[in-house]
């Protein structure tokens, strides 16, 4: 059941991407798009997509919106902070590679977490091993696991936990 609905979501996403890309809803254009999307959906039935495991609950929809909003505001803050550092003649950095623990188990949720960490305030995921994320931190506020987990992971994890359970 969930396999079928994942495939359906993948098919719909591909078709929307195709229509955005071709910028036309003429019959022949859409027909080619349907064929291509169907083909890709069929050959990737057993692989993961961003939808596998995303829970179809009202609160998970809300969490997705909250996640996107939180992510965008963090992205802007990250850039302003980084701009200040790069423009400062003294280059005030305190780099460290720290460990942060995540409670997420779903692979897609972990991928989104690692991606979000990479795009936000001075942090870059270097490696994931089991529940540990190794993160490079440009201005480290501490090198112990607890500080790193609190400062880096928890903000995003809140939303992802609801989205992927």
């Amino acid at each position, binding site marked *: 059941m969930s396999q079928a609905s994942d495939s359906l979501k993948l098919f719909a996403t591909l078709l929307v991407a195709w229509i955005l890309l071709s*910028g036309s809803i003429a019959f022949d254009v859409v027909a080619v798009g349907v064929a291509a999307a169907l083909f890709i959906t069929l050959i990737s039935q057993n692989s993961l997509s961003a939808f596998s495991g995303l829970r179809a609950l009202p609160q998970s929809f809300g969490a997705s919106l909250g996640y996107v909003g939180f992510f965008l505001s963090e992205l802007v803050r990250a850039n302003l902070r980084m701009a200040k550092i790069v423009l400062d003649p003294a280059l005030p950095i305190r780099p460290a590679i720290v460990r942060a623990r995540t409670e997420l188990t779903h692979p897609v949720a972990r991928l989104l977490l690692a991606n979000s960490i990479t795009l936000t305030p001075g942090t870059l995921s270097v490696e994931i091993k089991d529940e540990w994320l190794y993160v490079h931190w440009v201005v480290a506020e501490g090198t112990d696991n607890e500080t790193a987990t609190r400062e880096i992971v928890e903000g995003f994890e809140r939303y992802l936990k609801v989205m992927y359970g």
Partner: protein
Amino acid sequence: MTDGPLELIGALVVLAGAAFLFLGGLGLFRMPDIYNRIQAGTKATTLGTLLVMLGVGIIMPGWLPKLILVILFVLFTNPLSSQVLARAAHRAGIAPVLGTLADRLAEDKGDQS
């Protein structure tokens, strides 16, 4: 191109994006080691690209669908490639710059061997 208020706003958004692209280049140039360079390079350039695309979309609303695709693509691939590069750097044995406070990954690798 006409000089309406919408075009002006779009052009200013493009300008802000270009400023971030410049900062990304500056970060790549100034940062002392590869990890900090990846940080400066990916963050500034992602927001920079996003703003440039958005600004162009404001000036040319008809181009928006394709620009949104480009934005989504950049948002997903940019962090992925920086992560893969950071991991490659660490596995290839490139040490962080002197003065780095801690390298837990190197410590844990040492434990296992």
